[in-house]
């Protein structure tokens, strides 16, 4: 038989993404769970807020929150909860297992990442006595120029810099 692939979108009125895909594993209820969506939004928003901080520990907490937000998003994606996936229960009644498998993987990965970031911030604290994320090297160089010469328009007198002596020394070379 001829094998034709639907490379172009099918003609006709568009229904909904889920129905168009016509996948039986997805529940017939198309409305996502509003509560979970709000939780996702709050988690990601708080995460972004923390991510913008200079302290690495706060950045770490931010990534943690964003990661959890994304995990909850996968729950939303999985559709409404169904029966546990045991043998004997009809496949249509069972919760969609695939997003759960994916979210488990994502959780494991984020656990490892957080562990690594914690070690990193501890080492940063060991080395510099602070866990603040250092200035950008280029920015530090500009600021140094401003220090030596007249202050540029973007340079604020008395603003504290977290550039370490090491970095400045390196810029000299």
């Amino acid at each position: 038989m001829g094998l034709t692939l639907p490379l172009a979108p099918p003609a006709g009125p568009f229904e909904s993404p889920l129905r168009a895909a016509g996948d039986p594993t997805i529940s017939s209820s198309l409305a996502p769970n509003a509560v979970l969506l709000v939780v996702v939004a709050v988690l990601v928003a708080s995460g972004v807020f923390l991510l913008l901080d200079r302290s690495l520990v706060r950045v770490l907490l931010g990534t943690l929150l964003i990661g959890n937000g994304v995990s909850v998003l996968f729950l939303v994606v999985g559709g409404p909860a169904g029966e546990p996936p045991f043998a004997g229960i009809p496949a249509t009644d069972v919760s969609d297992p695939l997003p759960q498998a994916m979210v488990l993987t994502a959780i494991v990965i984020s656990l490892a990442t957080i562990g690594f970031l914690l070690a990193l911030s501890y080492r940063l604290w060991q080395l510099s006595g602070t866990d603040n994320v250092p200035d950008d090297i280029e920015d530090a160089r500009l600021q140094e120029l401003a220090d030596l010469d007249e202050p540029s328009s973007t340079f604020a007198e008395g603003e504290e810099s977290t550039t370490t002596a090491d970095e400045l020394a390196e810029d000299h070379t």
Partner: protein
Amino acid sequence: MTPGLVSDLVPLPVLLPLLGAALTLAVRRSPRLQRLTSTAVLTGLVVVAAVLVVEADRRGPLVLWVGAWKEPLGISLVADRLSALMLLVSGVVMLVVLVFSIAQGYEDDETDTPMTIFHPTYLVLAAGVSNAFLAGDLFNLFVGFEILLFASYVLLTLGGTSERIHAGTTYVVVSLLSSALFLIGIAATYAATGTVNLAHLAIRIGGLDPGIVLVLQLCLLTAFGIKAAVFPLSAWLPDSYPTAPAPVTAVFAGLLTKVGIYAMIRVQTLLFPQSTLHGLLMWAALLTLVIGILGAVSQSGLKRILSFTLVSHIGYMLFGIALATAHGMAGAIFYVVHHITIQTALFLIAGLVERFAGTTSLDRLAGLAAASPLLSILFFTAAMNLSGIPPMSGFLGKIGLFQAGVEFDTPLSWALVVGGIVTSLLTLYALAKVWNQAFWRPFPEIPDTDLAGQASGPAEAPVLGEAPVLGDDAVLGDDAVLLEGPGAGAGSTTATALARTQGPSTSRALPPVMLAATAAMTAVGLVIALVAGPLFAYAQRAATDLMRRDPYITSVLPLPPGVRQ
């Protein structure tokens, strides 16, 4: 070979390095066994990849369902022409760089702890890269990315010196963000289509509302754009790469950004053939090209210059992807192969320069041409190749892309052709500046200002025989301590201090194996030009497959579409 047997080879590029990583971790007390294992594993990887290239070219995409679980539950590994080629190139690069780092380890007589985790991590990196190239579904692609990113976090912060921790922080946080975006993209894709298998998605995504498709596409492209260092998302790269040990930087520069480019090629051709983002991608390509190279021109350290050229030349590949024509894709694929080899070669050379002269700062380097003619020839060849001087592969790759751009024939594609030529010239300018300062300029101009500058610095001027206090941090050579500052840098070895005060003539000799590995990498760049005809034909066939899509889809899902949906 029978088809079944060939398909069984498909998971090997992931399995071999993973097993090798476990083995090297088990024999961590014996550096010699570690070196032997890693070399054997990566050699095996290259052989398997070469077989896959031949077979994928002959039979079309090779598919393996892991654990024989078929769709819709199974996880597929797919080696089509593009994947196989990427596997082969990455395997060769990883092997050559491994030889380089082993030679460096021998020279420095490394038996400390950091070296023992280097081999397992390096092999895990290889597994991650292979997994990303072979992944037949979006989530497995994500897992591949995570594996290689994790290995790269460790490699980048190896030794845990202040510089590397600083660089590592930026890198880790940026990578985490891009991973989160990628996950959101996967979740949205799954919500819209109910699958993450790429072939399955290729069929289903056609039925979606164009607006939803656009959101999915933007989400995935942004995530890959961060990994590939496309312009507005590229600021992390020049800050994080140069601080790592030389072999690590070389492998990162060669491979990691290209995995992002590969992912972009894959999703753009397979999932979004009706892409409406030509304009956006072309603008991104143009800005990446021009702004990246302007960054390179303004830098004064060899490694940072190279990092900026790396960012800039990503624009060429994005150019090919943005055109979304068979010729554009073929040009991009050829350019990826060229760029992986040449960028790795250049970073290895930078590593040798740093080892030889004790610094990569252009203000302090001089007279290298007289001091080490061989190194100079290597740098000159590689630099000319990157800038696109005919008849080398850089020239051929750019010509292929420009032809595709001219065929496309819109004002923006012409602008990109012009931008590409300007970038090529500016690359030549930036590298010629390196050549003039570091290699060609006679030596005696330097010491006075140089030493004065050091004395006025916060640290003291290098003293002969200052003990290698930071020896533990010198993981893969002396570059770790060199970045600590002028005074501390001299602490690594007496030879370095000599190099500072008396010039390259008395600095330590370059180990022949390291030179040979670097020369091999440079030579691979030249060989690409020699075999450009067959390679371009291969890239063309790969690109045609990508644009037609059905070779990939039918080999993964050999069922008629009615049953499949």
